């Protein structure tokens, strides 16, 4: 984009980029260096002594895994149906689904609050998994249907003529060919589920039901705002995400950007 022929202008370009990056690196640096202030590794040992710390991680993993599984299966099936199968007034169903595309989750809070209490699933992971999945499905279906439309119909016609059942067409043609979009969908849903905060905050109130996004508050309560330990807690909870991102850079960037491809 920008052209820098001479050495001076190259250095200037590099310098400008570095200066602009600094504000982005500072909070990460503060988090990391602050977590070692005072007692050094002792901060981390203290955080690891928080009762049920692993439980928080386990719940986050369960929620992310269940949400990904539900959304993936439902999305692939629906995209197949919408794109390749015969459905009466298909577009009506499709637009009913798309109407929920931009729905802010907080809109569901009041009705879910009373419904969850009534069903007696308050405090269970399902009270978070189901609403999060429901909110993701319209978008992932839109994304996947657009992609599946690009898979040639001839493939399915040929398979049908060869006597393949609908199920076999789904499993042996659609699922493998839709893999690139599936990866984006999975990463997108996984990040959203792992980072979700509002629904766990409201519904996972029991001591054994916390998730990682609730940990910082827990630390703040536990340590009376002892900054170094709060920061150590932030590092521990952020680390899995940062490691996952750096090792799967391409997929994360595509998965997040998938949100823009409407």
């Amino acid at each position: 984009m920008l052209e820098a022929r001479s050495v001076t202008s190259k250095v200037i370009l590099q310098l400008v980029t570095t200066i602009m990056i600094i504000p982005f690196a500072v909070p990460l640096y503060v988090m990391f260096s602050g977590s070692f202030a005072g007692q050094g590794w002792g901060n981390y040992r203290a955080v690891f002594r928080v009762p049920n710390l692993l439980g928080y991680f386990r719940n986050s993993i369960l929620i992310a895994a269940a949400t990904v599984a539900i959304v993936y299966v439902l999305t692939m099936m629906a995209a197949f149906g919408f794109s390749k199968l015969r459905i009466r007034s298909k577009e009506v169903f499709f637009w009913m689904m798309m109407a929920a595309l931009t729905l802010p989750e907080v809109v569901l809070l009041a009705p879910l609050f009373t419904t969850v209490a009534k069903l007696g699933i308050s405090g269970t992971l399902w009270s978070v998994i189901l609403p999060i999945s429901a909110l993701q499905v319209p978008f992932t279906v839109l994304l996947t249907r657009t992609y599946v439309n690009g898979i040639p119909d001839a493939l399915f016609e040929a398979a049908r003529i060869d006597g393949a059942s609908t199920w076999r067409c789904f499993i042996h043609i659609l699922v493998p060919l839709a893999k690139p979009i599936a990866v984006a969908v999975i990463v997108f849903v996984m990040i959203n589920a792992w980072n979700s905060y509002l629904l766990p905050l409201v519904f996972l109130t029991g001591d054994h039901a916390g998730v990682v996004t609730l940990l910082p508050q827990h630390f703040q309560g536990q340590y009376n705002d002892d900054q170094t330990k709060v920061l150590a807690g932030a590092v521990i909870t952020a680390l899995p995400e940062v490691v996952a991102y750096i090792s799967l850079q391409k997929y994360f960037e595509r998965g997040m950007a998938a949100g823009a491809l409407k």
Partner: protein
Amino acid sequence: MSVTATTEPSGGSARRAVRPAPDQPKGGAARKKRRPPMGAPGIGWIAPGFILSVGLIYFCIVYSGYIATLDWDGMSPVRKSVGLDNFTNALTNKLFWGALRHTVIFYVCTFLGQTVIGFIFAALLQSKIKLAVVYKVLVFIPVVIAPAIMAPVHRIIFATDGTLNSFLRAIGLGHFAQPWLSQTSTALWVVILVQIWTSVGFGFILFFAAMGQIEPEVLEAARIDGAGNIRVLWSVVLPDVRGTVVVLAILNAIGSLKLFDFPYLLTAAGPAYSTDFLGTYIYRETAVMGHVGYAAALSLLLLVLAVGMSIIMSARGRERDKRKAVEADA
């Protein structure tokens, strides 16, 4: 690897096949006649997803409509029907309009910040810069980490005895040090700043991908005609990535309407409600105050705003698609 490749089965030829899809539902007669390749009924295939998402969401909305006419805490058996009082109360409440005002300010500032900084970063990193991957990772990490996890770090940075104030004192600007998060004049700006910090990477990734699609020959031609760097960015690159700007405008609008995590965790919507947003307002009325009826009325008002906005946006989007189609035909 280009980001836009996500919707393409494999490379360019398939891409043309995918392109018409966005306006397909309202597409021409030719598209309506397109027979599905499989005669098998598909209703069973869409049913699970349809029931979960449409079922749950529409149920919630309809149920909200009912709750919104009640004076109810959500649990007790005592429910008093109050008609439309909750709505008139909301519309005459200073807090509601305050939250809306904060949403608009937040939207304009975060959209501008994310777009301008993201655009500049993308242009810089598409140039021949050393260590580009390191810069990219640093800008994108904030996008990946949960706001709820970063919020305590930002709180420590902007605290009265926090990192920012110590830095200001260290460089002799101590008189600028102030309790950033606990005074009404600065709290909203801190929330905006933190959101920009979090979201620039997202804008950057989209611009970066869009710029990767610009033909090098076009840039070369502009340079031969004597255009400098700034001129190339303004007259060649910017018009080409206009679509990304529109996408960011849309996503930021939705994001601002559903904002909850940062104002709740950084400032608890305070001080004196100066960082209150619709998200924090609805949360407070639902889970803290136990005014579930009132919260449901607020939710429906928010829903009207969100739906109204997406209708306006999709209408504009269609206009754009049409313009593009005309340009492509010409």
